[in-house]
């Protein structure tokens, strides 16, 4: 079974790309959590090589800083989600790939997801794809503020749409039957 939502491109890798992979059971979640930020910052730092800043041109330095900040934020959120929603019962690896295109960047993050939560996630995606992200964003902030027990901000994907005008897509694929393992790949396209 393969299901696609939103703007998901299936094609060969571009010439320039970087993949970081994680084995779900090798380190406890808590320590991996810190890894999210480290990996995201690494991807962001690495990428700045391709967008050199010119010390004499402040606009090029600003652009470089903006790209670095966007990559660090988006990669971190995608990794946090992947670690959070990863199906603990499966050994399917988590990976993040950053591809460099002429006119932009493509992030793809793959992880397993519990077959029991797939339906809920897909309904959320469908809502995300038809809603006004800025309205949904403010609604979510108000809702979080009203609910002291909420520990899940629910803002990660929304900020990518709202603040970074990202194009987003998802692919769900059954990679193993009995026991069932479903992999989801989240793709975020950013114009730079």
């Amino acid at each position: 079974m393969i299901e696609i939502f939103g703007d998901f491109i299936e094609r060969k890798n571009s010439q320039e790309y970087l993949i970081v992979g994680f084995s779900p059971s090798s380190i406890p979640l808590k320590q991996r959590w810190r890894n999210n930020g480290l990996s995201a910052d690494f991807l962001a730092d690495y990428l700045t090589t391709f967008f050199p800043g010119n010390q004499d041109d402040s606009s090029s330095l600003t652009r470089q800083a903006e790209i670095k900040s966007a990559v660090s934020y988006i990669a971190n959120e995608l990794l946090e989600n992947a670690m959070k929603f990863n199906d603990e019962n499966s050994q399917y690896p988590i990976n993040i790939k950053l591809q460099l295109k002429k006119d932009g960047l493509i992030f793809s993050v793959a992880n397993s997801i519990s077959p029991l939560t797939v339906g809920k996630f897909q309904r959320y995606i469908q809502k995300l794809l038809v809603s006004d992200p800025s309205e949904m964003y403010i609604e979510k902030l108000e809702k979080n503020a009203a609910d002291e027990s909420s520990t899940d901000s629910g803002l990660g994907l929304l900020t990518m749409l709202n603040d970074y005008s990202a194009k987003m897509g998802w692919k769900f694929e059954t990679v193993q039957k009995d026991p069932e393992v479903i992999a989801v790949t989240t793709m975020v396209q950013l114009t730079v």
Partner: protein
Amino acid sequence: MEIQTEQYHICYDRETATVSFSGSRGLSGPEEYQPIAQLRGDVVDVEAGKITLNLQQLEFLNSSGISMMSKFIIEVRKKARVQMAVQGSQSIALQAKSLKNLQQCLL
């Protein structure tokens, strides 16, 4: 009063009713929310005319951090007589985006 972790530092100066945030990593698990919620309660209860959030040293904020910050702002908004100032830094690209959104919470 202050909260210091490996990821971030939050300091509350009661005299000036200023909460300063710094750090380069986001919030992680739910256990990190509790002390911040408590601090937020203390800050909002103070009968100051003006509360200041100083974010100038805050280099990174993940979505959990944005949510935490919006709770501060929304709770202060409920207090009709309290003014709030948020100080940010233009040189931190992420803040330009997040603060614009948080500003809408005050409207």
